[in-house]
């Protein structure tokens, strides 16, 4: 227990922890699919606000570590969409002590880079009215500019080339790798940025976990921007990869755009192509200085490590970093659409035939939210309620070869559940849409089948057991819940979705599955694409901002 009045608690305040999950008297009689195996989460909060969450699991001598910052696409400004994701890459290029052979030499160049970029921003402001987009749409990768902007950009390249003489590439990544770091994805930037968070995560041998504290404390406080201009295009490639697939790019973004009026939780993390031209170091460093402070960070550790060990390391590294000013605390809201405002989106770019029926649902932490995971699990897959709807005397999934899926998005803000049917033929789409809407109606009428509910509960229990038994996944869930709502919500949520009753399903279905809360999107395989004369500004003309 913390005694904050004690002079000895200057460093840390702690708290314990505890998720007293529910060992109610009835548990012994629970059906297996309702059984819930809790984990014991310990919590430590340093005096500077840095939070440590820890679950001990000594079965394998390794530790999954992830550090979470409450900053994501929702914190971006207009004209800089994708800047948080870009920042993730920008601060993975080393620090004042890592990734350099002579930082003092670099520092002088950084001053020149700043001055040059100031000039570039000033020039852009000066010619803003000649560069701004006046057509309806912009040409992808056409970055308007003028000769002066080109010269300044060229100068920035030259300065970065000079800076690169002192640079050690992939320094942090290679230290992690040398010491056995397992990274969730194979990218040299071991991080993820979403709408609501950014995290860096590694799984290390237990005896080397100090490396994580060393590198991440440094990254949080002393990151140095290196190779910025090349990064601009590397990150852009990730975005292009998404945009070039309609289902993950344009179609998805249009669907999100139709879902909300103002809420930034529907922004696409990673941003927009044109914005990449306008990122500048100064605004990104403002974001870094604002949000990368110990009082906005949570470290989630799962594995063969005790809280005593974690505390010693946390105090040595993160405890050294001064508490920062509280990050901006903007609260985002979405106004309720008027009744009768059901939206239908007909997509005119050829892609796989599909119907998406989307409803808005509450965010994590709301009492109604767990049941939507139960609903998604009951509807999902080739054996789910959607695929099982009757069609021509058989199951529609089999009869028409339709692949059905259901997914309830997990965010702290308002969210969505998507019911999707992928058909092999366009002409089956009306039947697919009808089947989805019939399934929704049956949920509203309390018609969830006992077998579907039982299967859903089992699938959710399996999912929780996977989270509980995989270090990296548990570390990830702890961090995500912490930034979205609070880590202590994780287990009640997991338990509640596993135990949602037919009546609870009916109740939330009646409340949320109503037409004015719905968006239906239809995409077809055989459809004439738009005419070739796109409404872009001047295709192929603009690369003026680039050397």
């Amino acid at each position, binding site marked *: 227990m913390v005694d904050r009045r004690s002079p000895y608690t200057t460093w840390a305040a702690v708290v*314990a*922890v505890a998720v007293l999950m529910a060992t109610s008297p009835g548990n012994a009689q629970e059906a297996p699919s309702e059984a819930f195996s809790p984990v014991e989460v310990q919590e430590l909060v340093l005096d500077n606000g840095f939070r440590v969450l820890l679950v001990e699991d000594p079965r394998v001598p390794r530790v999954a570590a992830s550090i979470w910052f409450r900053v994501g696409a929702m914190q971006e400004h207009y004209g800089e969409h994708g800047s948080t994701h870009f920042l993730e890459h920008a601060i993975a290029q080393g620090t004042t002590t890592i990734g350099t052979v002579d930082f003092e030499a670099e520092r002088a160049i950084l001053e020149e880079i700043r001055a040059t970029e100031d000039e570039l921003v000033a020039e852009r402001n000066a010619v803003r009215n000649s560069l701004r987009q006046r057509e309806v749409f912009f040409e992808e990768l056409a970055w308007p500019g003028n000769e002066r902007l080109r010269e300044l950009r060229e100068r920035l390249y030259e300065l970065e080339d000079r800076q690169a003489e002192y640079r050690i590439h992939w320094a942090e990544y290679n230290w992690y790798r040398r010491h056995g770091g397992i990274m969730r994805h194979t990218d040299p930037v071991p991080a993820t940025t979403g709408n609501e968070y950014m995290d860096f995560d590694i799984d290390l041998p237990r005896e080397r976990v100090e490396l994580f504290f060393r590198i991440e404390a440094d990254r949080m406080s002393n990151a140095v921007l290196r190779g910025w*201009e090349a990064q601009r295009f590397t990150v852009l490639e990730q975005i292009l990869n998404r945009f070039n697939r309609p289902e993950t790019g344009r179609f998805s973004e249009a669907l999100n755009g139709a879902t909300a009026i103002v809420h930034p939780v529907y922004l696409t993390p990673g941003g927009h192509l044109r914005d990449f031209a306008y990122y500048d170091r100064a605004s990104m460093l403002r974001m870094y200085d604002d949000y990368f402070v110990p009082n906005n960070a949570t470290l989630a550790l799962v594995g063969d490590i005790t809280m005593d060990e974690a*505390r010693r390391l946390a105090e040595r590294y993160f405890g050294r970093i*001064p508490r920062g000013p509280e990050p901006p605390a903007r609260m985002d809201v979405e106004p309720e659409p008027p009744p009768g405002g059901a939206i239908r989106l007909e997509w005119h770019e050829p892609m796989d035939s599909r119907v998406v029926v989307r409803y808005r649902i509450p965010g994590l932490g709301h009492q109604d939210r767990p049941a939507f995971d139960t609903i998604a699990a009951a509807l999902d897959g*080739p054996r789910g309620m959607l695929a099982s709807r009757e069609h021509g005397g058989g199951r529609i999934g089999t009869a028409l070869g339709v692949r059905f899926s259901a997914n309830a998005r997990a965010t702290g803000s308002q969210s969505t559940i998507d019911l999707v049917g992928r058909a092999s033929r366009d002409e089956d789409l009306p039947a697919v849409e009808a089947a989805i809407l019939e399934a929704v109606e049956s949920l509203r009428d309390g018609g969830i089948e006992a077998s579907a509910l039982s299967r859903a509960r089992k699938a959710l229990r399996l999912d929780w*057991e996977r989270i509980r038994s995989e270090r990296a996944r548990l570390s990830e869930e702890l961090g995500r819940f912490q930034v979205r709502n609070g880590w202590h919500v994780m287990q009640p949520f997991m338990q509640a979705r596993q135990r949602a009753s037919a009546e609870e399903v009916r109740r939330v279905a009646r409340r949320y599955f109503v037409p004015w809360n719905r968006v239906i999107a239809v995409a077809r395989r055989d459809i004439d694409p738009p005419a070739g004369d796109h409404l872009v500004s001047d295709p192929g003309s603009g690369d003026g901002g680039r*050397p």
Partner: protein
Amino acid sequence: MMSTGARRSRVTPAWPPRLLRVLVVSALAFAVCGCGRGEENESAGVLPGHSRPVVEHDWPHPRDVTFPDNEFVPPDPAAAAFTTDSGLRAHVVPEASEALVRITAALPLGRLHERGGEEGASGLLASLLTRQGGTASAARRISALGSELELRQELDLTVLSAEVLAEDWLEGLSAVVETLRRPALDEDVIRGHRAGPGYASPTSGVAGPGFRPKVELERLLGGHPLAPPDAGTRVSVSAVRALAERSLGPETVVVGIGGGVERATVEDALQQLTDGWRQAGDVGTVADSFGEPPELSASVYTVDVPNWTTTGWIAIGHTMPPVPPADRPALEVAAEIFNVRLNIAVREIRGLANKTVLELPESTDHGGLAHLRTGGRAESIGPLIHYSLEELARFVDPEDTITAKELADVQGGLALSKWQAALDGSRRASAAYAVETARRGNTEQLLQWPQEVLAVDAEEAKAAARKYLDPDKMVAVIVGPMDRIQQARHPRWPVALDDLEPMRLAR
């Protein structure tokens, strides 16, 4: 250890004098630098563009930190091994604390096992084993347990796996074993089957076996069985049956079971499930080397995908002969080092692509297609090919040297990261042992891997690279919007595609 209940963390306050000194020094530095007075950027403690000072510290540099010996010990494969009376080999790795069980079945089934007239049969047979199908299908039974039956197929190996709750392990194991023992070879499904194009989508990213440029390169360099069968290929019922006869037997299948199970119970179940299972025929492969590619008239080929995409995808490679076990560690080390250099050259320095990776063949003898896979916006395509091949040429140049740091970084990654990840816990270890036994008959190489990797020196890695990778034999296939790619010029790295003399693939 996971347990129920809660525990409070007790704080032992600490205020070591050294720390106090650092704080005082930091505070002084903060005061001297003028922070908080609106002149941060002019101060010595604030980096250009920042609004807050650098955090001064005495943290050791990673190069100066030494760590205790690594303690990881994988589950003992000898203790896990078990063979049924029918000849089925299994690895049972119990872990009482686990609430889950992973069931894996690995068997020699892939394109290399297809004989004349059987083109496409391995993929179709694997699909039949795992399709939802009738009431007795394994996929349906696993689905009823809230899980999914997963399928992975390589040139000469197929792996089926599922993860289920511990209470469902017997039903899960029965579903997997019974589908292999009594496969539902639905004749209507076989007759209606036509081989697909072999790739998932024209421009779907760098990952996966369905990466189209790789498939096109395989077709160009070897055709079947290096490449998937051509689109539209029909497979006869007799071909599927013949392949099933040869591949699906108790002595060919290796099962892994790891997690919350008891060994004795699993052994009893396996005995019963395999009792009377007839042995399979000769499963031998039909091709054991892809070392001699055909004579080609060009080194760059293109496939036009004219749609709204702005990105082109590339595979650059050549066929590779089998790699003897003695050469494997050095070749893996070399490939990893090259991958770092390659990405620094094309990604970090030039910003041409998000990811570029050299992949070695995954077949059991490591023969097959060695290739680089990458992709980027139109203006990047020419430079990506140019600089990738330039980097490879530099890497195999005898004058070039591998540094001690490069070697140590990669050796750590292979020995401590990849290897431990494959054997991390009872479920993964059981799967890894099953796959390794299906490939090589035992787990010896797998267990010796860390020592073998750590024993590789720079010269050996270099020699392996020169022996197996040849930039002069590399052939590139580009898939994408070719008009756009042809016209594009990168402003900083203007390598025109025309300079590479591309030849359009007839499609």
